[in-house]
């Protein structure tokens, strides 16, 4: 279509060039030109429509729909509703706006001290340029100096720092560093979240999920690979290599080869169930796909051959030779013999004990087993070596000790040790490949035997050396022996004797302790009984019984006191007689006070009411009992256990007017509040500095300065400041933080529990 139009174009251009002499002629010429050129048919024009019918159809459909659709337009919402919607939208908008201030407000609420106006200029020396704004170098000397300075890049205004230094200072301020740190922290946290998520995903047991996941991954990978082929062929090649590797792995493994438990079960079902059959086939297909060699165009021929060789034995790895003719996928099976050969080739040494079918997939397992066994052997060997060393050292140890004692026994023991070790070796020989567990058990048993023997030996040898020191009591050397009682093997009569001694000693010790305990308990119980027996009444003999110590006096008073003789006499007489009287008076007083403090029983019985009433008639006992209100007994008196003290129980309420009775806001219980007011604030009890710090005002305003509300521009800045945190620096600021951390730890602990 385009071509045809272009054919027309030159005519038009031609016409235009001709200019507008007379329109009619031109028009005719144009028509002629058109008619003379290649003819354009309508069909040509419409023909294009056939090629792109979708647009037309769409519009057609729309038109049709419009025709069919006879529903009227919805009526507009009422004013009320529209307003409501508008309000909602507006609310959302403004709340979003306002919430931006929230952090600032919270920060200000939390801040220990706020200094207004907020953006104060820093105090201290100002720059010269600020001080003298309109100053210029005028004299030639000045100009020369400034030019010199400029040439050498020396600071002109700020006399301290050069521009490079300033730049370095500006590179990262503390705030920026803090912000950056926060960012880093955030990324780290995000990473950890991601990791946690991945871990969670990994732990999902659903096979279906993983299958789908894998499929998706594979698809993506392929897509990426396709793209990579276009963009980065080198990387793609590497990827290809990787694919090759994976293919090799797949070939080596038994995956997707219908050799697993599932496949076996399906194989049984396959005869009757189409679904099972399909599933198995699918597995094989997957295997095929994975093991298919990728075609690399460079060296096709060689590869092809190899491929044919290699792709063939894929099914071969099937374990079960199921002779089922129905399943078409079973027919292509090769015989097992070549595989056997292969395996033999791989592992020339023959395993004589191996029993069972020489399965095709067995080789891998066998390899593993071999490795395992090797390691086991190694470990065993190592164990032997160690034991040998131990034995040697013990021999060295034992030898000198036994030199003094009887030799024969030592030899015996040695012989046994050797026997045991021989046994061990034998056991190892027997349990060659599969019975590793048993070996270890045996080994352990041997070791324990060995150690027990050793201990027995040592124990046996120690007592004669220690006996004079330790005596028959509980020596230090004997306690481990007691602990390891089970391990000692009694071999000689002497041993038996020793053991009996031990037992008897321990028994006697136990008995003595028991006896002591019983005695103690006896005495205790006796005293308790005595306590119980004691009356609640205070015995006058117990009051003022503290024995007085007589003090010697270097000087004797000579002068007679000035008190009149009569009074002295009287006092002496009183002194002689007073003693008991004073005490009994005091006790009476105390009893009286106690009585007064006891709550009285309230009797609410009324005469009459179901009974005869009148003079001289008492209401019945049951009635009195019923209407007697008993009050809970008061808490025990403070002076309950102090016989010669009376403490008034009446509460002193005068101080209550000065005490706090209502807790301020954040406090919930009195203990919390009491803790915060435990230390005084005043100058009398604190140093000047402390008082200033403790009683610093919450808001500080500069005198005469205009305090303006926070501007929107300051918002971000403020948030940054909040990160740094303006606070009154108390010296011991670190304490609580540390504590906080420790508490967190505690919490974690609890969570674990």
């Amino acid at each position, binding site marked *: 279509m385009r071509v045809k139009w272009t054919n027309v174009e030159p005519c038009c251009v031609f016409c235009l060039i001709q200019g507008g002499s007379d329109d009619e002629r031109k028009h005719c010429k144009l028509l002629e030109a058109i008619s003379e050129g290649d003819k354009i048919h309508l069909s040509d024009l419409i023909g294009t429509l056939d090629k792109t019918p979708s647009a037309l159809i769409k519009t057609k459909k729309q038109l049709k729909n419009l025709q069919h659709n006879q529903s009227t337009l919805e009526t507009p919402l009422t004013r009320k509703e529209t307003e409501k919607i508008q309000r909602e939208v507006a609310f959302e908008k403004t709340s979003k706006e306002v919430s931006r201030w929230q952090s600032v407000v919270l920060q200000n609420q939390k801040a220990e001290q706020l200094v207004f106006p907020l953006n104060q200029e820093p105090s201290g020396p100002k720059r010269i340029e600020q001080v003298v704004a309109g100053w210029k170098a005028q004299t030639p000397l000045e100009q020369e100096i400034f030019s010199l300075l400029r040439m050498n890049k020396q600071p002109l205004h700020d006399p301290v720092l050069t521009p490079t230094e300033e730049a370095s200072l500006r590179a990262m301020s503390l705030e920026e560093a803090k912000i950056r740190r926060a960012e880093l922290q955030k990324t780290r946290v995000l990473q950890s979240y991601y990791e946690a998520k991945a871990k969670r995903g990994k732990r999902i047991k659903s096979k279906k999920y993983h299958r789908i996941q894998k499929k998706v991954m594979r698809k993506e990978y392929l897509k990426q690979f396709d793209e990579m082929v276009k963009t980065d062929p080198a990387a793609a090649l590497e990827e290809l290599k990787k694919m090759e590797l994976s293919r090799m792995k797949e070939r080596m493994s038994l995956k997707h080869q219908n050799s697993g438990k599932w496949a076996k079960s399906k194989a049984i079902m396959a005869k009757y169930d189409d679904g099972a059959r399909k599933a198995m086939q699918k597995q094989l297909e997957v295997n095929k796909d994975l093991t298919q060699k990728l075609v690399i165009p460079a060296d096709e021929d060689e590869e092809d051959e190899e491929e044919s060789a290699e792709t063939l034995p894929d099914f071969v790895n099937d374990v079960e030779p199921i002779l089922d003719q129905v399943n078409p996928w079973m027919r292509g099976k090769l015989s097992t013999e070549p595989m056997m050969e292969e395996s033999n080739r791989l592992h020339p040494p023959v395993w004589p004990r191996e029993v069972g079918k020489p399965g095709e997939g067995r080789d891998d397992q066998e390899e593993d087993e071999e490795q395992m066994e090797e390691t086991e052997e190694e470990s065993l060997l190592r164990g032997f070596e160690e034991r040998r060393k131990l034995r040697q050292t013990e021999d060295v140890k034992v030898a000198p000790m036994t030199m003094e004692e009887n030799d024969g026994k030592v030899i015996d023991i040695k012989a046994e040790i050797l026997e045991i070790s021989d046994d061990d070796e034998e056991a190892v020989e027997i349990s060659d490949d599969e019975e590793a567990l048993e070996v270890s058990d045996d080994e352990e048993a041997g070791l324990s035997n060995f150690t027990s023997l050793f201990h027995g030996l040592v124990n046996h040898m120690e007592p004669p050396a220690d006996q004079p020191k330790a005596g028959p009591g509980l020596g230090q050397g004997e306690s481990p022996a007691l602990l390891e009682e089970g391990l000692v093997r009694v071999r000689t009569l002497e041993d038996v004797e020793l053991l009996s001694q031990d037992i008897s000693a321990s028994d006697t010790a136990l008995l003595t302790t028991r006896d002591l305990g019983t005695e103690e308990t006896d005495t205790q119980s006796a005293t308790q009984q005595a306590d119980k027996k004691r009356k609640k009444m205070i015995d006058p003999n117990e009051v003022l019984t503290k024995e007085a*110590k007589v003090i010697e006096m*270097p000087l*004797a008073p000579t002068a007679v006191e000035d008190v009149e003789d009569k009074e002295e006499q009287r006092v002496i007489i009183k002194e002689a007689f007073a*003693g008991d009287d004073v005490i009994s008076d005091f006790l009476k007083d105390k009893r009286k006070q106690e009585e007064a403090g006891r709550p009285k029983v309230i009797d609410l019985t009324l005469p009459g009411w179901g009974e005869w009433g009148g003079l001289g008639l008492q209401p019945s006992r049951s009635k009195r009992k019923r209407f007697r209100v008993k009050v809970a007994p008061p808490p025990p008196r403070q002076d309950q256990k102090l016989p010669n003290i009376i403490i008034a129980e009446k509460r002193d309420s005068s101080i209550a007017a000065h005490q706090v009775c209502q807790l301020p806001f954040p406090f*919930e219980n009195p203990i919390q509040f009491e803790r915060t007011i435990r230390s005084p604030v005043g100058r009398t009890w604190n*140093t000047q500095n402390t008082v200033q710090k403790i009683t610093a005002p919450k808001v500080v305003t500069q005198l005469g300065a205009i305090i303006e509300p926070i501007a929107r521009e300051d918002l971000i800045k403020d948030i940054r400041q909040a990160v740094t945190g303006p606070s009154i620096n108390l010296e011991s600021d670190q304490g*609580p933080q540390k504590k906080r951390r420790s508490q967190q730890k505690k919490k974690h602990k609890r969570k674990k529990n």
Partner: protein
Amino acid sequence: MFNSIPQKSDPFPGSAPVPEEKLNKFKRGVKGELPPRPQYKLRDVVIRSEAASDLAQKQNARYDLMLPEDAGFLEGDEDEDTCTISQDDIVDAVDITAGAKYFSLTLSQFGPYRLDYSKTGRHLLLGGRRGHVTCLDWQSKQLMCEMNVMETVNDVKWLHSEALFAVAQKKWLYIYDNKGIELHCIRKFNDVLRMQFLPYHFLLATASATGFLQYLDVSVGKEVVAICTKAGRLDVMAHNPHNAIIHLGHSNGTVTLWTPNQREPLVKMLCHQGGVRSVAVDKTGTYMVTSGMDKKLKVYDIRAYRPLQSYFLPAGASCLSLSQRGLLSAATGDIVQVYRDVWGIPVTKPYMAHRAKGSVWGVHFCPFEDVLGVGHGEGFTSMVVPGAGEPNFDGLDANPYRSAKQRQEWEVKALLEKIQPELIGLDPSQLSQVDHSTWEQRHVDRVQVLGFDPLAKEKFTPRLKTKGRSSSGKVEKRKKQVAHEDQRDVIRQTVEDRMKIDKERKEKEKKKAAAAGQKSALDRFRK
């Protein structure tokens, strides 16, 4: 090794550590656990206050008196009791200024004297029974005033400063200034026998022959309260400097404790079988010493009301006085004995003894000086008692060397910091506690209004689970589990505490053992 440049590092980095003992000295209250994190506002407040109190404690400990003076005591030669050392010997041995503190005034005319030292210890007030009243700067022996009130004088007492003093005369209570001018005659206070001044409350407490205990607010000149003790003649009185409680001794052997806020005694202690002759309370408010007609001297722990020591004095002690460092002076007839550490190991002999010229009528230790003033029938004796006074004075509280200007300033500050009489109680720290009964009442009301207790611990309600896991048995099981967990927490806490205590104890024992097992240089000669 060779190319590293040796850098000078600070061997003592950071600020100097504050010794533990000093920190403990300024420890106020106990730190507790922080509130949980969700209550962040409360947490912030608590953290801040803890930080502030830590700072205060540390700073106080750091700026505590440095290079404090030590109190020295008399030490006798071998086989020489310190009580046999006479005042003259001491004066011979000490320097001239210390020696000048031993002197006696012979005032035989106006009969036995009672005395009082001002709070700073510079000024002495003497009151003779027969009306002679005099005050003087005893160190410079400068007489401030001297007069005869022409009436029986029962007791004399300095008020808050050396400008005013009170004299309990035969009928009324009088107040004079230091020039001897009578300022007030207080008719509400009659037949006063003994007086005590509570310096931080500006209260003059008087005990009268009619059995009335009265409090006079000196700063406003008003009677605070008059309490009828119903215990007869009150001639034994002391006050506890720690909590400003008045101790009265009675003829029936009891000592009663009083505040101006209660009409009954807070505590009534039976101390002696005979009447009580004298009472004294130590500076820290821990010990009370009493002497009675039964010739016994008893020491009580006044916080627990338990007798600590009991001594028998052959002649009985008529006057007792405790010094700032805890020396006890007891007057028996004409002999003044001074005891050291009567509440510790039981003493058998006095630390010092001195025979006065007449029978002793009043004894008083001078604050911040190693001096004991003795008023007796023949006048007044000032004796030197080494180790009696507190060597380190608080210049802001009681400065013996203050000028007139400083005194004025101190007076204003003291008046501003005056403690109201309502705050007097057995426990002076009660003010820092919340008024529990009111708070509890308020809380009950609040619970009633709300319909639930906002402070109650949330009860565990098991979550509803599906698939038969919320059967009643299972729910019960879960509840039990939670209960067990809580219990385990409690148990764990207690076990931890116990372990901690055990550990500390073991460490202590270990240290002790280490200290005991330390080898001395002479051990090598031991066989």
